[in-house]
């Protein structure tokens, strides 16, 4: 109980300064502008254009780079789990997903998350 109280107290204490909030506002504006541009272009610009194809390719590459970093070079708690275990979990989840990609996202995600919890329990022993 005491731990929970301590957790709540520290959770509501402010940690971020002006700089982080500035970054958040800049990122939020950037994200909103993309939505607004979509409204502006709706029904006017071809979705098959080369520019959109290039933009999509860049986005995929960036999300892929992010995913690889989160799995291979995590910061914080995940880095306490050995790399090979992280990779084994990913392989198992991908295996579940590939049995039937159109219906297996939820089970694959659940199995991967539960395996990570299990590893945490074993590590804590």
């Amino acid at each position: 109980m005491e731990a929970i109280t301590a957790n709540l107290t520290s959770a509501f204490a402010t940690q971020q300064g002006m700089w982080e909030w500035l970054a958040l506002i800049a990122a939020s504006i950037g994200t909103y502008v993309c939505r607004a541009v979509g409204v502006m272009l709706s029904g006017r610009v071809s979705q098959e254009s080369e520019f959109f194809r290039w933009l999509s390719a860049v986005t995929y590459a960036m999300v892929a780079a992010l995913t690889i970093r989160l799995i291979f070079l995590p910061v914080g708690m995940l880095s306490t789990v050995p790399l090979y275990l992280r990779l084994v979990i990913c392989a198992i989840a991908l295996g579940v997903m590939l049995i039937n990609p159109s219906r297996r996202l939820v089970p694959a995600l659940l199995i991967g998350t539960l395996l990570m919890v299990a590893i945490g329990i074993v590590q804590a022993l």
Partner: protein
Amino acid sequence: MSTPPTDPTDLYNQRPEHFGDRVTTEMDCLESYQGSHQSENTSVFDQAKTARFTSTTHAFWSGVRDGRGAPAMVLFAGMVGFGAMGRTNGFDVWFTTATSFLMFALPGQIVMLEMILLGASSLTIALATSLTATRFVTMTATLFPMLHARDRNKALYAKVHLLAMTAWAVSLKEFATMEPKYRLSYFCGLGLLCWLISIPGTVVGFLIAGSVPMPITLGLIFINPLFFLLTFTEIKVSGYRLAILLGSIAGPICYLFDRDTSLLTAGFIGGTLAYWIDRKWIRRYDHVKRGGV
């Protein structure tokens, strides 16, 4: 989508009852414009006058009802994971929740957290998050032409914030079965629910991350990396598969040279290279294979 039935009752009967069968993901939208041409079909859909709703309020609540289910659960889980990530990386609950509220785009939110941790500049962060948000351009541009002409006014610039993967995919499917004048209300009900559950999701993830035993927190922060990885298997366009592969290779290499901007440079280098290879060889090969010149 290519051959919409002309009889409105057929359209109504084809309406899927369970969205949970196939959970749509952040990745679907980028691919969608390859296969479907929503704007061209709008006129056909407009003719499908079904008496599905009696009023705009009815349409709104029907949107709220349709938002519950597997897609919203995955969104909620992602937000819980994001909240846990914020907690374990030393962010406070205000900042973490404000991120979900203001950005409402998971890949961008995680890119931002990562880049703040690495100490990147605000400008680099804004550029990188905006790039992950470009999918919204294509999503909006395919969905909003289906709205009634009366609804396509300045107010859309406010309502577009409710647009995310889940609301987009469900709306695209459902719009075909309703009168155009009710579509905006339906979209608002659905989008508002998704946006509003992302806030308790983030707060719950944040608060339980510090209160529950360590193994559960570990599982929570692993949700999003795993989620992104799994959605990559749903991409069918070979050019984009190549972009994912090259991005995965470019990522760690760029990280060695310059940590702050590595996501941005990896995306640019990997994506542009994949686009170029796709245009130069893959598409030409596909064309020849199909019996073209």
